[in-house]
């Protein structure tokens, strides 16, 4: 069924991004905004704006019933959840299914299957995808035996966690039982699910993920990988494609593993299969699957020329995959920098406020995804990411040079941002060489403090 009017259940840059594709496709947009976002760029661009509640996300963007009521009441035939907020909430997908509204995303069942990290781990094993040595342990004796088999250090992970949340490191096997108890209690409080499991802790790893598209009937293709190893406390800061210095055989195996995993679920829509790449051993392990569009999707769009939002919509309309694996080719390299309203000098504290003036870069190979214009307000209630600057080039060196020049031509006045910090990372020799691991940023910060 063709979508004629789409409800956007999100805010910020991704709302603007979705509106852009809808305009190109001739789809009308209705944007749900909180009171704090009435004056946002997305609100100016959408065909219709509905205020869904007060600024606090729990009273607006996170209200499943309000979102569906707003979509039905405004005559929308589909809901796009963006990322974050309700994007991976099975109850939204389920209510859409019950009300006959198209949910632009996977089925409720698929969201649940990948949201339960222990279940996802089991599915990966069944699909022949390597997982980190570990597993569930029901009793203290089982945990002891498992710990002895996989060896310390060990990560205790919450089955309901993910995205770096709900993890605890055990370096001494004698601390295992106490840490598991604590992790379980915290997981119960944070995720409503007290189950935890164990995994060997891979010290030197790179975070590499594979973009997939599934038609919901078992057909799955991949759109290459992204290296997201530059992270601060599990929050990604810079993402790029292709992953630098990855052996061709490993890259192919990674892509194939992601496709096998998604195909096993008969996955529908756009999704990302995340892996931890163990550098010294040239081995990779399944981490989790994200059942939504990702923040870093533009680097994939840059090298493939494919509009991922448009493909999400096509799949949601029941049109399946519009190209075969052999039709997908990756040209050059692309790097994305996240610009956050946070102050690196104050331990990255969020810096909400009003942007007095802003100048975004333009130029060959440069793309900026943002909702920030002169006078834009950055409310304190939401994520601090305000823009993504993406550079595409014939190779990584050209993309990096373009990104450096682009950041040098960016001005954001009125609030503190991480712009200078990102500029410093791009100037780092290790980053320039490419292929840094997830410990890179912590070392980089230590050096800056020491200097």
């Amino acid at each position: 069924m063709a979508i004629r009017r789409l409800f956007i259940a999100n805010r910020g840059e991704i709302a603007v991004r979705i509106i852009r594709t809808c305009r190109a496709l001739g789809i009308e947009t209705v944007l749900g905004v909180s009171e704090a976002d009435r004056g946002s760029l997305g609100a100016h661009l959408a065909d219709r704006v509905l205020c869904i509640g007060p600024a606090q996300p729990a009273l607006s963007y996170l209200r499943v019933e309000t979102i569906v009521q707003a979509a039905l009441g405004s005559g929308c035939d589909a809901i796009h959840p963006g990322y974050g907020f309700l994007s991976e909430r099975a109850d939204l997908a389920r209510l859409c299914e019950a009300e006959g509204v198209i949910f632009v995303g996977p089925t409720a069942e698929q969201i649940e299957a990948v949201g339960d990290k222990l279940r996802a781990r089991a599915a990966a094993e069944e699909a022949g995808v390597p997982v980190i040595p570990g597993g569930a342990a029901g009793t203290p004796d089982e945990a002891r035996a498992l710990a002895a088999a996989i060896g310390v250090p060990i990560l205790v992970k919450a089955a309901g966690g993910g995205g770096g949340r709900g993890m605890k490191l055990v370096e001494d096997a004698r601390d295992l039982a106490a840490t598991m108890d604590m992790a379980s209690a915290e997981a119960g409080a944070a995720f409503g699910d007290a189950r935890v499991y164990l995994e060997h802790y891979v010290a030197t790893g790179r975070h590499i993920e594979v973009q997939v598209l599934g038609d919901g009937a078992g057909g799955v293709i991949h759109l290459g990988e992204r290296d997201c190893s530059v992270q601060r406390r599990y929050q990604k800061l810079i993402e790029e494609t292709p992953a630098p210095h990855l052996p061709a055989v490993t890259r192919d195996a990674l892509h194939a593993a992601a496709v096998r995993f998604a195909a096993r679920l008969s996955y529908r829509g756009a999704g990302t299969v995340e892996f931890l790449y163990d550098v010294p051993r040239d081995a990779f392990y399944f981490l989790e699957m994200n059942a939504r569009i990702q923040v870093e999707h533009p680097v994939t769009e840059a090298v493939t020329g494919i509009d991922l939002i448009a493909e999400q919509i096509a799949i949601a309309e029941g049109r399946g995959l519009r190209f075969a694996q052999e039709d997908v080719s990756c040209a050059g390299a692309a790097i994305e920098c996240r610009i956050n309203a946070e102050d690196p000098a104050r331990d990255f504290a969020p810096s909400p406020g009003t942007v007095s003036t802003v100048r975004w870069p333009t130029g060959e190979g440069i793309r900026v995804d943002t909702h920030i214009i002169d006078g834009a307000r950055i409310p304190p209630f939401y994520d601090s990411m305000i823009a993504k600057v993406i550079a595409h080039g014939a190779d990584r060196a050209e993309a990096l040079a373009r990104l450096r020049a682009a950041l040098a031509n960016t001005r954001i006045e009125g609030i503190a941002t991480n712009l200078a910090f990102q500029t410093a990372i791009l100037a780092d020799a290790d980053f320039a060489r490419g292929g840094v691991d997830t410990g890179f940023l912590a070392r980089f910060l230590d050096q800056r403090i020491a200097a």
Partner: protein
Amino acid sequence: MTLTRAEVDRIIALLEGSRFDRLSLEMDGLKLDLVRSGATPSAPRAAPPPVEIAPPPPPPVARDGLVEVKSPLLGIYYRAPRPGEPPFVEVGARVEPDTIIGIIEVMKLMNTARAGVTGEVVEIVAANGEMVEHGETLLLVRPD
């Protein structure tokens, strides 16, 4: 999942034979609360909050000194408790802050909207059965 009458009777018998005064059972969308008669509900389970939206903050004074009574949430506005019944308020009616002025339906959940002000209803702005936004004006009231 449902419980038969016989099963409920057996659960009651179990409670009676126990040293507990209260039993709460939740399973697959079914919820059973039993309290022994005469027992002081020492630590009763927190009841689900009634669907009652806090009265809106003192509404801003609009044109001609009138106050806009705004919808506390997004949903379908109904002027009457049920179709065919008289509306909660008509033009000319007196309202107090607690006076119910309508129902806002969100996916079959009915929420009451209250006046939040003392005065006389001058105009009904929102249309019955239509969707209103969070903060959309429902009525105009001339405050005392």
